[in-house]
Structure formats: C-alpha cells, structure tokens
C-alpha cells in the first residue's frame, strides 16, 4: 500500500505533504496554548470536512445535516463515560456503529425512494432537527439541561480517558486529520472511489455502466457518518458539555461543510485548506476588532460573511484548485 502511494503520488505533492505535517507536529514545541486551541479548531473542521466530503465531494449528495453524526458520536461516547465510566476509545465502538446505523436508515429511505438534489439536503436537515428535538426530551442524557463531563485539574494527560491539556487534544486531532486524509485518498483511488465519482457525475450513466448505485451510495453515507462521529466524540471530550440545542443545530452542520466548500469540493486538500483559510480569517478579524476596541456581538460574523462572499465570488472552484494551479500540482477530479 505504502509502495503504491509513493509510486502514484507526484514527488512534489509528497514533499509538500511531509513538510506540512512535520510543521504541524512541531507546533506545540514553539507555540503556546492560544495557537494550539486555534489549530485544534482548524483541524477539527478539516477532519469533519474531510468526512463530509466523501458524501458530497465524491458521491455528489449534499448533506446539510452532518451535525446529526457529530452529535450522535458526542452523545454516545459522553453518556457512556458519564454513566458507566466507559473510556471514549471504547465509546467509539458504540458511537461509530450508532452513527452508521442512523446514516444507513436515512440513506435507505432516501435512496430507495430516489430522493436526490435539494430534496436530499432537506431530508438530512430534517433528520438532524429530529435528533435535536428528540435529545432535548431524552432524560437519560439530561435533555435540554445539557450533559456535562466531569472536569477536574488533571496533573497528567490521561490519553485513555481523554482528560488532559490542549497539547494532547492537538495531537489526537492532528493524527485523526492525517488519517482521514489518507483514508480519503485510498478510497478515492479504489474501485469504490471510481464508482462514487461516476455516481456524482451522472447517476443514470453510472447505472448503465453496471454500478449498483444504491449499494455504493449507502457505503458513502455510512462511511462518511462513521468518520464524522469520531469528530463528535472528540468535540464532547474537548468541550466537556453538550446541549442538543447547540450540538445538533443546523449552524453546526453548516460549519462542517464550509471548509470543504471554500477549500474545494471533492478535492483531498480542500477541507484542510478551507479550514485554515476560514479559521485564520475569523481569528484575524477577532484580533483586529479587539485592537480597535470594538466589541459588538455579531460584527465578527458580518465581516466573516463578507470574506465568505468574496471567496465564493472570486474562486468558484474553491481556494485549493487555485493554489494547486499556482504550485504546479494537479489533483484528479474537481
């Protein structure tokens, strides 16, 4: 496998990738917690964006409800931890299958009844909203009053129970992002990846080429959901509190999809680049506004909206394809 990667990927891309992850791995030695917390956020969105991209970018089905899967992951692992003291890594064994099962149900209904396009997007919102209201009334996870993970001053990092300082969380999400990138890469170059792209490009032609489109769409939605749910587990143990109103809110779903959309849908680097661009812009705005002593709620988001607007208008394909052309790199597909 490694051999094939080394053979298939252009040298220039490999060098760039190696440098990129090496720099990120070295960051905790030079930067403080402030930079780390921002990078954690960036990598979190790069990770979830990568997972979402499998469904939209590869298979062409727009999900506007991926907060459903981060939320399910977060609540599964967190409630097992709070109630039974189950470590989050074991909790993943519940979180991933639960997210995949719900995605399977949603996919089954959508694909059996040939729901696609805008209608599919609305269906995903409906499922997420269902979960939001359902969890609001779900007493075992404390409903709308919120689920809290015990926070104490930890003398050392407990990697098994995910209790510790930002540096630990940073490395976890860094490894996860690198893995998600690798998984996406391998999937895209596999038979399944080719079939996904075919479905994205023209579903009728894909069927006529012998592809069992139902099966491959189910795979896409379930793999995407399973990967996304890990993001939720991370979110739960990093923030230590969960409210259905926030976790399943449509704003979370939109946040997840912005990075790959801005970075370049269907590309492997898009989610990562998009997350960096968006979070840097957002944080930069905060710093500038603070420097001028402006503290009005909403003003940062307005600027942010304009930044987004500018990117959408100026770079319709996304930021990454534009950068890639300038660096002389080429990635397959749009």
């Amino acid at each position, binding site marked *: 496998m490694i051999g094939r990667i080394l053979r298939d990927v252009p040298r220039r891309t490999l060098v760039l990738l190696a440098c990129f992850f090496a720099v990120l791995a070295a960051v905790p030695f030079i930067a403080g917690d402030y930079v780390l917390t921002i990078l954690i956020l960036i990598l979190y969105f790069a990770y979830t964006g990568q997972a979402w991209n499998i469904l939209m970018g590869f298979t062409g089905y727009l999900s506007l409800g991926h907060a459903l899967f981060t939320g399910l992951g977060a609540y599964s692992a967190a409630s097992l931890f709070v109630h039974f003291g189950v470590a989050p890594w074991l909790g993943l064994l519940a979180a991933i299958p639960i997210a995949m099962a719900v995605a399977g149900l949603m996919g089954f209904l959508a694909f059996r009844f040939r729901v696609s396009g805008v209608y599919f997007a609305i269906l995903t919102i409906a499922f997420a909203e269902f979960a939001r209201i359902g969890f609001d009334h779900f007493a075992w996870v404390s409903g709308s009053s919120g689920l809290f993970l015990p926070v104490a001053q930890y003398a050392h990092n407990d990697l098994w129970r995910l209790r510790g300082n930002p540096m630990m969380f940073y490395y976890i999400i860094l490894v996860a992002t690198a893995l998600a990138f690798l998984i996406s890469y391998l999937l895209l170059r596999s038979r399944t990846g*080719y079939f996904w792209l075919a479905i994205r490009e023209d579903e009728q032609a894909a069927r006529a080429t012998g*592809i069992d489109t139902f099966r491959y769409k189910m795979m896409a939605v379930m793999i995407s959901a399973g990967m996304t749910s890990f993001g939720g587990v991370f979110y739960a143990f990093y923030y230590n509190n969960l409210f259905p109103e926030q976790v399943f809110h449509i704003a979370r779903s939109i946040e997840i999809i912005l990075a790959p959309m801005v970075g370049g849908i269907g590309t492997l680097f898009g989610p990562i680049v998009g997350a960096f661009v968006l979070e840097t812009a957002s944080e930069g705005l905060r710093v500038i506004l603070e420097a001028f002593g402006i503290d009005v709620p909403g003003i940062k988001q307005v600027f942010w909206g304009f930044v987004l607007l500018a990117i959408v208008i100026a770079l319709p394909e996304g930021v990454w394809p534009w950068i890639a052309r300038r660096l002389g790199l080429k990635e397959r597909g*749009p």
Partner: protein
Amino acid sequence: MTVLLKVEGITKRFRGLVAVDNVSLEVPQGAIYAVIGPNGAGKTTLFNMIAGEFAPNAGTIAFNGERVDGLSPDVICRRGVGRTFQIVKPFPALSVEDNVMVGALLRKPDIGAAREWTRVVLDRLDLFDKRAQRASSLTLPDRKRLEVARAIATEPKLLLLDEVMAGLRPTETDRMVDVFRRLNQNHGVTILLIEHVMRAVMALAQEILVLHHGAAIAKGAPKDVVREKAVIESYLGAEAVH
C-alpha cells in the same frame, strides 16, 4: 447459430399511448442488427426496455437464454449488455481515461488490471492520445466514441448503440462504422443499433427491423427491406413512392 437476445411480443404503454406494440426480434450471436424507423416510432423505448430503464407491460426479453425483462439497468449491464445514450452522458469532470476506468473496474476489480484493460480499450477507440483530457472538453464525435469505450470496457456480449451516428459528419460516420466493424469481427461483440443514418445502417447491419408507430412493419436483410413499399412510405414519406 445461437440467439443472444430474444425479444418476444413486448409492449409498452405510456398513459394509454402505445409506444411499442407487440414487437419481437432475435439477435444472433455475433451479428450486427439494426432497428430503424422515423422519429417517434418507439425505437428508444424498445431500447430502454432491453437496457432495463423500464419494464415492458407485456412480453418477454431473454438474454443469453435467461429472462432479463424488469431487471434494473445495472444488473443487465452486469449480465453482459453495454449501452450508449442518445444524448451522450460521459462523466464530464473526469478524464477520458477515468471514464473508461469506471467501466473497466466492473469486471476487473484490481486497479492495475483495470488500467491495463482501459488502455487497450482507449487504443481500440482511437482515444489513447486524449486520455488525460477532461471528458467535457471533447468534441461531440469524441464524446460519442468515449461512451462506446466506456460500454466496451464493461466487456459486454451485446452492445446497444442508440443513434450513435447522429450529428456526425460523413467522414466521422465512416470512421465510426469502421470502429464497430472491427469490434464485431475482431472481438466478437454482438451489436444492436438504433440508427437514423442509413449510410451507416446499410454499411453495418446484416438484419434490419423497421418500426413505425410502435409496431414492426418489416424485417429482413437491408437490401430487401429498403425496397419494401411500406418501409419507403413510412420512412421517406408517401410521396417518395411515386
């Protein structure tokens, strides 16, 4: 001679309108068989039933001795029927090579093996030099050949061609005819084509079925069929007879 495709008395109605009315045909293994007829004669409907886009209201379709009517398009393709679309449907954002890869991967799950086979198919369809181009950047004749290449890559026993010559210039048509003749003679692919371009039909087909208002009005060798009065009337208009 064994029969590869056997269609018996199939009928398709759309809201009371009979698009295909009790049509039967037999395509022998290794043959090139053409279905002709004026616009709206039901050719594409007949085709779509064979390819599995929709099921007939009555009648049966047997491929390779097994009933296939009512099966879905992907299953029919896996049984060994490749098709092209009247309005071409390549995967626009993928490269020419990746378009064909999708087809090749159907029977060759290994990426390396599929890639080798893809190159062979590209070469056969004169597309090898354009393999790195995006499908959306191709000219119409190239896109049509790309669709044929994608279908061929699935290694079909029967190839369905839906007006694959339409919109081509005569020289391009001759080139296409040549491609199909080679596929048929050198690689044993049986071909069923719907065609408007008589030049191509006369050059390729060993047997012709003529559809008019959904019904078969003539059947036989090209030379004989074009002489039949009913065919000339329906196809060229009644005045042509005089």
